[in-house]
């Protein structure tokens, strides 16, 4: 236990915050889908996976493509796939033909997850690939802040630069989404549908379109987060499965359907996992239980406050 020092705890916290923002990025799209369609997509991670691969192959083909553009293209690709899927399979749900849409959607997206994942295995093969960090940092040394191409030291605490970039993307995307949802007409239309479908159609909003749009935007965000994170993690066709389960946890922690909630939920999860794994007495099991710590907090939150931190009260 003598390894537990102040510096150690600060490092754990810092790790937790960074990975937490990244987790938040993963969950952003899922929370949008949940808020409008009222469903959890089990294929969320697969769109995340596809986003990553799109960037990988784009950068393979056009080596000097601006990475941020690659991220946008990845978003466009997953948007299209999401829209097609929604039109083919989720539309009857919007029409109110489905008795229990939540469960219907869980199963349907589970089938989609299977489908996408194994098709990708067939196409790209099962071996891990990865994209190197998008940008090299300039070299500086100010004592408290040192930077090198791949790593930044903040008060002697090493932080990977690709993670920093990904968290930057996370914050920007979340801000954009919040702005979009509250300030644009389309965003308000989405909100309206999420709160009362019938009323929305009574004012002239086409709820089916909004459903399609929301699902597409959700998968787009999933794709973009994958695109940003393919520099952080090694990529395989099944990389989406843990991303999905993390996202489930996060949207519940943050309050289903809340955008800032997604980031906050991600932070909580990241910090809990970090401290759990850092402080669990038996080192050989510390990491084995890392997911369990998150799940435990998740279960507790569900039991104590099912609406999450940012959940709607009414």
């Amino acid at each position, binding site marked *: 236990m003598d390894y537990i020092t102040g510096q150690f705890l600060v490092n754990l916290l810092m790790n937790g915050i960074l990975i937490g923002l990244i987790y938040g990025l993963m969950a952003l799209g899922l929370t949008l889908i949940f808020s409008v369609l009222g469903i959890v997509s089990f294929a969320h991670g697969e769109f995340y996976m596809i986003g990553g691969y799109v960037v990988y192959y784009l950068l393979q083909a056009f080596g000097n493509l601006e990475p941020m553009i690659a991220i946008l293209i990845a978003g466009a690709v997953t948007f299209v796939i999401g829209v097609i899927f929604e039109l083919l399979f989720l539309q009857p749900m919007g029409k109110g033909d489905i008795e229990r849409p939540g469960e219907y959607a869980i199963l349907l997206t589970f089938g989609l997850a299977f489908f996408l994942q194994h098709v990708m295995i067939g196409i790209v093969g099962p071996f891990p690939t990865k994209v190197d960090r998008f940008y090299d940092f300039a070299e500086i040394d100010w004592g408290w802040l040192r930077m090198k191409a791949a790593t930044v030291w903040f008060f002697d605490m090493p932080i990977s630069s690709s993670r920093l970039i990904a968290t930057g993307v996370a914050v920007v995307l979340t801000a954009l989404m919040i702005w979009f949802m509250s300030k644009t007409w389309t965003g*308000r239309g989405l909100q*309206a549908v999420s*709160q009362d479908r019938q*009323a929305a159609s*009574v*004012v*002239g909003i*086409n709820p089916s379109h909004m459903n399609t749009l929301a699902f597409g935007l959700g998968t787009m965000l999933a794709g973009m987060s994958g695109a940003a994170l393919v520099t952080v993690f090694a990529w395989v066709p099944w990389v989406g499965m843990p991303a999905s389960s993390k996202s489930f946890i996060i949207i519940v922690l943050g309050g289903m359907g809340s955008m800032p909630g997604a980031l906050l939920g991600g932070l909580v999860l990241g910090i809990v996992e970090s401290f759990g794994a850092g402080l669990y007495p038996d080192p050989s099991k510390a990491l084995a239980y890392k997911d369990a710590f998150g799940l435990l907090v998740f279960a507790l939150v569900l039991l104590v406050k099912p609406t999450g931190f940012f959940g709607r009260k009414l």
Partner: protein
Amino acid sequence: MLEIKDLYVGYYSDLNIIQGVDLIAREQQITAILGANGVGKSTLLKSIYGFLKPNSGEIWMGDRRVDGTPTHELINLGISYIPQHTGLFKWMSVEENIELGGWTFRKDKDRLKQKLEESYERFPVLKEKRKQAAGELSGGQQRMVEISRTLMTDPKVILVDEPTAGLAKLLSQDVYDMLTDLRDNDGLTIVLVDQEIRSALKVSDYVYVLDLGHNHFDGPVDENIDLEEVFWA
């Protein structure tokens, strides 16, 4: 204005709830649709408003045939619907709720602003509460928001389903006053489904009584109206 010809609608393929109903909602009048429970009044409204697809028959709006038109497009034709239970966006502010009523002309900022002002003039309470979440309002105020939202689009016809069920007397009086006001001052055509037969008769100009899927009785509301037929069940 709104005309229904020999309409057949149902929930199962081989059973029509509405079996050959004919109905005309005359311009600038309140047309009441009455009848026992389960005769198909709500079903009729739902089919006019595109939630249910007619099996046969026609629905005309002016000289345009509208059966089969999706709900969100009807609004462009000037038909609006106030369902029985309030359908507000509970977590949005009052102002956002009313503004969303202007969805179909959302690009036209000036018109939006003007219509919003009109709503506030009609219901000054709402102006005070405009930043409050709609779900926190009392039942009557929620009705006001809903009506304001419906009026944003300048509809020609409004369909209203049991607007006062469960409303306190004072409030339901307000609602009926509002309906007559809309007819008299804004020139709207109103189709009213109600079980509050007495109150409905007081405000309406023409009444239809339905019997299990059929027309049973209809006639203008005046001193000569056959009350027996209206209360028939």
